[in-house]
């Protein structure tokens, strides 16, 4: 990297891994999570900018989803502190995290199959007094709120082109439609930060375009978005900021174009020797070697008998 200090409007000071943001929505410090001997997440410091689309990228096993689970309370860290809008969220249960306005979706879509699409949406709503077991018994106490959230749900469903499906069971939707439904459902609670775990995984290219459009729209409405993604082109297309994880650590961050050319990122994704020629297999072939060794071993065994 050059000696001149890189700056960016989202960043307070120099751009680099763990840099300070002008207006962070999430600030995490010393978050670690180990599984046995494996350190899955070891993030020293990271800040997620507000009202921006931030992509969290990295190779398989980099700890992105684990970090996601930790931030949203679905997993418990070994150490670490993090705050959301200034409130500490460390060791807060998942449902409380969601109530604070930090709502997530899942890599493997979790649509509630045997509920209708509309029921799925209504579950996402907050402040429904009828969700209390006692008020639930008396319909007039919750029917007004129910009407309000039904009209809101229909509005969002229309935006996601799922309105005509609203009475169908969610299990009858296609994989891509379920992704849309999950995102739409998360919007029912008017989240401040929406966290999407691989929103584009297993979605066809046409639907991907529409998903990208929806994500951009979220930002336009004032929400902050953090998403995990594998596809670099996707990331380049919509994100304002990119954070790169590898082996549990944040190894780079910056605006997409700059990050994609960062040697640390290329190393993490492609390996340090990605541009050296692997040759045309004139040398020893490990597969053939192994076969020969096995044959030799078998012959020896036979001879012994």
């Amino acid at each position, binding site marked *: 990297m050059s000696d001149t200090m890189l700056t960016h409007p989202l960043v307070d000071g120099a751009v680099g891994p763990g840099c300070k943001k002008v207006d962070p929505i999430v600030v995490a410090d010393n978050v670690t999570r180990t599984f046995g001997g494996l350190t899955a997440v070891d993030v020293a410091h990271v800040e997620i900018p507000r009202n921006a689309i931030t992509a969290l990228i990295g190779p398989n096993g980099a700890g992105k989803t684990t970090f996601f689970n930790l931030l949203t309370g679905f997993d418990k860290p070994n150490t670490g502190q993090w705050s959301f809008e200034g409130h500490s969220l460390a060791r807060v249960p998942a449902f409380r995290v969601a109530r604070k306005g930090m*709502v997530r979706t899942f890599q493997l879509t979790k649509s509630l199959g045997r*509920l209708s699409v509309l029921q799925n949406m209504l579950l996402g709503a907050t402040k429904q007094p009828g*969700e209390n077991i006692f008020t639930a018994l008396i319909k007039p106490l919750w029917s007004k709120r129910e009407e309000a959230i039904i009209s809101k749900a229909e509005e969002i469903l229309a935006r996601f082109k799922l309105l005509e499906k609203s009475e169908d069971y969610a299990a009858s939707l296609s994989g891509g439609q379920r992704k849309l439904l999950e995102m739409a459902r998360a919007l*029912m609670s008017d989240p401040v930060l929406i966290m999407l775990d691989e929103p584009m995984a297993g979605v066809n290219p046409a639907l991907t375009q529409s998903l990208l459009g929806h994500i951009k729209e979220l930002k336009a409405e004032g929400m902050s978005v953090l998403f995990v993604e594998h596809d670099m082109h996707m990331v380049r297309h919509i994100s304002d900021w990119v954070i790169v994880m590898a082996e549990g650590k944040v190894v780079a961050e910056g605006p997409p174009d700059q990050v994609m050319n960062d040697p640390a990122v290329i190393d993490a994704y492609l390996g340090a020797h990605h541009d050296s020629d692997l040759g045309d297999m004139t040398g020893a072939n490990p597969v053939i070697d192994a076969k020969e060794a096995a044959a030799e071993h078998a012959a020896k065994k036979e001879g012994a008998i």
Partner: protein
Amino acid sequence: MDWGQILSTAAGELLSPVTAAYALAAIGIGVHFGYAGLLNFGQAGFMAIGAYAFVVPTLLWDFPIWAAFLSTILVSVLFALLLGIPTLRLRADYLAIVTIASAEIVRFVVSTSGLTAITGGATGLSGYNGGFIDLNPFAPGRYGFGPWEFSANQLWVRVFGWGLVIIASVLVFLLMRSPWGRVVKGIREDEDAVRSLGKNVYAYKMQALILGGVFGAFAGVIYVLPRSLQPTNYGTTLTFFIWTMLLLGGAATIFGPIVGAMIFAALLTLSDGIVRGLIRADIVTFISGTQAGQIRFMIIGAVLMLLVIFRPQGIFGNKKELSFNV
């Protein structure tokens, strides 16, 4: 073979207090399994807890009947908390293991000879239904017609039992059409998804466990009101009878558990009557009367298997709802 007698006994069974108790217990596991997705294999334990919590204070401390009912509610809520606190944070199968074991623990504890002074040990308890009979609003005499002809006391226990069944069904109906029911059904589908939407999944599961458990406890009371309390009645067979009834009628339905219990109870009596009739008429000679009592359970086992394979949604269940592999 007296077909009239056999059919009439079976028809009488449709409205018997035992059937009402079965129906109420089935509504309880309907709440657990059908709506909330909780695997409770210890409904017999809840029934035993309910029955003993009703009977023991009545006999020991002369509790009035309202206080005995209050004790049933309190003790069954405590029992549900005891089962739920350690297991509801874990995967669904842990609750299944804990409930099946604790139901057996309850049965063994109440039948130990060391507790004979309190629980009556293996012989059980009797002579506690005076308070209930005193409340009988019906004048002495015969009521009803045909197979459904009852004395005043028989009518009273039936009206009371089926009244509780109706109250429980109305409660379940009101809850399941409400947003509370929506959350609970969402938990049945995927609890992490519901958690990610800001719902306290643990609290909802606990509420469902308590509600269904209290229904089970009341079922235990209805079960013992017209007879004496016998600890041997509360084995795992009772739990699986109730599961069969629930699956027969349809797990996530209002009328399913009631109709399932009626059909089951009538079939149980009918098959017993027929097998015994055949033996008495010397048509079947290779089994004894005692063996005949066991044969119906084999038939029920086979029926349960066929049901789960060919009609998993039960009589009232929505085929569409179960046709997805989720």
